[in-house]
């Protein structure tokens, strides 16, 4: 059962071959055993999951099932879950139990899905390796057979590792600069970052509000479509969410790709992209040609400015977003503060990890009097140029394709001492967040036994087209079905 997709499990449940309680028990058993190696979960909610599974079975018996009723999955521990600890991978929130659901959480609850727990992540989603979690690093299931402990990518590394290891068929994730696509690529799973505003951010703990976007992670494009069907839509509680009809993303999965115009941004096939990685990605693009797509080289002239702009804007927003963690109302508070200043400084010194502090400092600096124009305003100008690059590119092509990352999963600890090298992990993904457009990572091959991701980038609200392109590719390839040993 653990190898089945959400779509398949849904059919099994519908046929009555298995109940949700049985299915949930199987997944929980496997999860508790296998996750000792991976540490992909921060919290496993066994009791709640079984209660939800029981309710789902009753729901189905009453003839009120949705495609998700009784299907197990997991939430990244950045989505608030009413009554269940929501830590964001931080000591600061290790004891935080929200009395409310994120809109995404609520939507899955309403759909009848069974949440098995909360997945591990870089602290406050700041990282590309899931090593900065207060709850310990997550290990990529790929590489374990070679006796190596490799990173699953990040920040949604827990979700990616759990899906890759078949601990859950699907998991929610978030992406601020590549946090869905990079771990999906490194773990050989399929992930989608939707258009900014497509999925509500309410109850999703903020890192950088203008870049954060909740999204999907599963093994197949079809399952990503099933997830997005539940997640997408306007939310009156998030005034940056967009009031626009939500299509049935599964309805167009089987459209032929004949005539699809694919652009290859030349700036995304250079730099530190290894020859072996490039060969895998170009191989995947040849598959698209066989499916009837046409290929064209395009240019995103400001691509090289994306990382610099991102590392001003994201920390600037984060520096304000994380001010609420002050020890006054919830979360961690230092022992015996002697006065207000002492409470603030020690709570934050002790509650936040190194990378989070680094970004708060960078962001505070960028917003300071005398530096604001040179950093923040300049970065915003660059952001508009980058956005315009994509708008121009989509005048000639339907989608863009590139590698998701310059290299496959690296060994744990390899990049922790050098933040800039770590930041370069997102060199192909970051510009997409600055532009606010949707993009996917789809398994597209292996280098040295490690998964390689193909990034498919689309115009605003083209999620259906991206899922269609990914699904058609998955009909003629089996990279997404490979299982780590």
């Amino acid at each position, binding site marked *: 059962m653990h190898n089945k997709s959400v779509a398949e499990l849904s059919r099994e449940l519908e046929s009555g071959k298995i109940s949700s309680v049985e299915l949930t028990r199987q997944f929980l058993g496997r999860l508790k055993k296998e996750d000792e190696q991976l540490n992909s979960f921060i919290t496993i909610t066994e009791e709640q999951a079984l209660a939800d599974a029981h309710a789902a079975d009753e729901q189905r018996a009453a003839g009120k099932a949705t495609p998700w009723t009784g299907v197990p999955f997991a939430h990244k521990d*950045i*989505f*608030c879950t009413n009554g269940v600890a*929501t830590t*964001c991978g931080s000591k600061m*929130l290790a004891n*935080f139990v*929200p*009395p*409310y659901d*994120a809109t995404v959480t609520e939507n899955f609850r309403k759909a009848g899905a069974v949440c098995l727990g909360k997945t591990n992540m870089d602290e406050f989603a700041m990282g590309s390796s899931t090593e900065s979690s207060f709850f310990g690093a997550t290990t990529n299931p790929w590489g374990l057979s070679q006796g190596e402990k490799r990173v699953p990518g990040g920040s949604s590394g827990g979700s990616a590792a759990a899906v890759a290891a078949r601990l859950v068929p699907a998991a929610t994730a978030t992406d601020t600069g590549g946090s869905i696509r990079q771990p999906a690529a490194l773990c050989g799973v399929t992930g989608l970052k939707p258009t900014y505003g497509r999925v509500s*951010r*309410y*109850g*999703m*703990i*903020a890192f*950088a*509000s*203008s870049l954060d976007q909740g999204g999907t992670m599963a093994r197949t494009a079809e399952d990503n479509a099933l997830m997005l069907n539940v997640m997408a839509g306007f939310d*009156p*509680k*998030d*005034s*940056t969410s967009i009031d626009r009809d939500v299509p049935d993303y599964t309805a167009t999965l089987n459209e032929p790709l004949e005539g699809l115009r694919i652009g290859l941004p030349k700036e995304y096939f250079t730099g530190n992209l290894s020859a072996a990685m490039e060969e895998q990605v170009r191989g995947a693009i040849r598959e698209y040609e066989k499916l009837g797509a046409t290929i064209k080289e395009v240019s995103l002239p400001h691509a090289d400015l994306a990382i610099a702009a991102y590392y001003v804007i994201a920390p*600037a*927003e984060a*520096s*304000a977003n*994380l*001010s*609420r963690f*002050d020890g*006054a*109302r*919830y*979360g961690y508070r230092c022992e015996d503060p002697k006065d*207000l200043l002492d409470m*603030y400084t020690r709570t934050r010194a002790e509650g936040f990890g190194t990378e989070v502090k680094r970004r708060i400092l960078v962001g*505070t600096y960028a*917003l*300071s*009097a005398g530096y*604001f124009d040179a950093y*923040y305003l300049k970065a915003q100008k660059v952001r508009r140029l980058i956005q315009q690059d994509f708008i121009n590119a989509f005048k000639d092509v339907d989608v863009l394709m590139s590698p998701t990352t310059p290299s496959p999963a690296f060994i744990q600890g390899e990049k922790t001492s050098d933040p800039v090298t770590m930041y370069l992990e997102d060199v192909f993904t970051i510009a997409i967040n600055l532009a606010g457009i949707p993009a996917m990572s789809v398994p597209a091959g292996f280098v040295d036994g490690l998964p390689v991701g193909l990034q498919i980038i689309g115009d605003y609200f083209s999620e259906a087209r991206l899922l269609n392109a990914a699904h058609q590719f998955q009909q003629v390839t089996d990279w997404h079905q490979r299982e780590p040993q």
Partner: protein
Amino acid sequence: MQWDIVIGLEIHVQLATKTKIFSGSSTAYGAEPNTQANAVDLAMPGTLPVPNEQAFRYAVMFGLAVNAEIERRSVFERKNYFYPDLPKGYQTTQLERPIVGPGYVDIDLANGETKRVRIHHAHLEEDAGKSLHEDFHGMTGIDLNRAGTPLIEVVTEPDMTNADEAVAFAKKLHGIVTSLGICDGDMSQGSMRFDVNISLKPKGSDTLGTRTETKNLNSFRFMEQAIAHEVERQMDILEDGGAIVQETRLYNGDRDESRSMRTKEEANDYRYFPCPDLLPVEIDDAFIDEAHNSLPELPDARKVRFKEQYGLNDYDAGLLAGDSQLAAFFEAAADRGKDAKLASNWVQGEFSARLNAEEKPVADSPISGEQLGDLVVRIADNTISSAGAKKVFEALWTGENDSVDAIIDAKGLKQVSDTGELEKMVDEVLASMPDQVAQYQQESDPKKQKKMLGGFMGPLMKASKGQGNPKLFNEILVKKLGG
């Protein structure tokens, strides 16, 4: 040395919306601490602000009322600083693109002239919570009921030159926002709070001096005192050859003292930047038109109407029209009483004096405009004397009875206006005071004669047990003595 005083004001006006500016919590005053603070107000992780349209409508109404430009696209920014009553660690406010642009208000000066005070801008923002320093044994309590209450902050140009002008402007603004119904105007509850920027410069100089800001003045009286206090403080320093430190000061009205809160050097770097959780606010013509059509009568227009409709003079009309509650009270009294001048005198006299003495707003008056109108009717038709009227007013105010006529009956205040009866009393009194009568009749100066009439009034009132109509007594006396 002679000095020019330069005063600019910043006024925080709490908007009377039912719910907060970015959450659905109630804004009602006086609830148990933290019972009107939801997850958004507490800045729980992942929560997001959702703008309250009514706050924007009120801000636009305010802008229109002060002849200002309405910005079609205004932007919320984050003002970053740490304080326990600021749950998010930043205040959501407007800086570069405020919703209300430049405008002006005309104020009436004591010398009868009108002065224009320019408004630099007004912006929307959220209020902070309150820190409670008492009752927590060395700790601080936090009440977040007020956190997120919508405010508009009105910033004037430094156009005022003395405390009278500043207070006149403040009262005018109070009248405008209460007339608009966008603020309850209750200053004792912090619904309007004034910050005063003051600087001095040598008389006639074009260069502004260094200014100080005195914060959070919550009554017109304190504002007047604080300005006087600060002007004197600055003048002393300057005349001793010292320099003014740019700083924020706190004024203690009870002690008439002020102290420095922080200097410019100690000021926070607030690191403003546009709030990424809120889209720019787009305001279209239809929204502005709708706000325009919903504007009630404002003090300036009301003053003109009071002069025309009630025949009031400029001063009375301005005073009564300036405060919407007082205006409504006056109109009720005048309409019921049928004598606007008399109603105006009573509203400005006995009624206002009583409110001031008890430090009550008009809304908390124990008597209604209609009741005062009933009283006016009985004064005008000579049923009671003005001395009797004061007794009736007192009984109304203390709640002894709420019917004017019932009080008059119960207290026996009805005047005797039967001329036959009154003439009889006059005859009797005159007969008993032959010397005074002779004296009166020998007097040639009518002014002195008039004064001498008073000598007969006492015995007459005594004879009538206080119920004789003094006006009629007077007429009869003049007729009989002069005969």
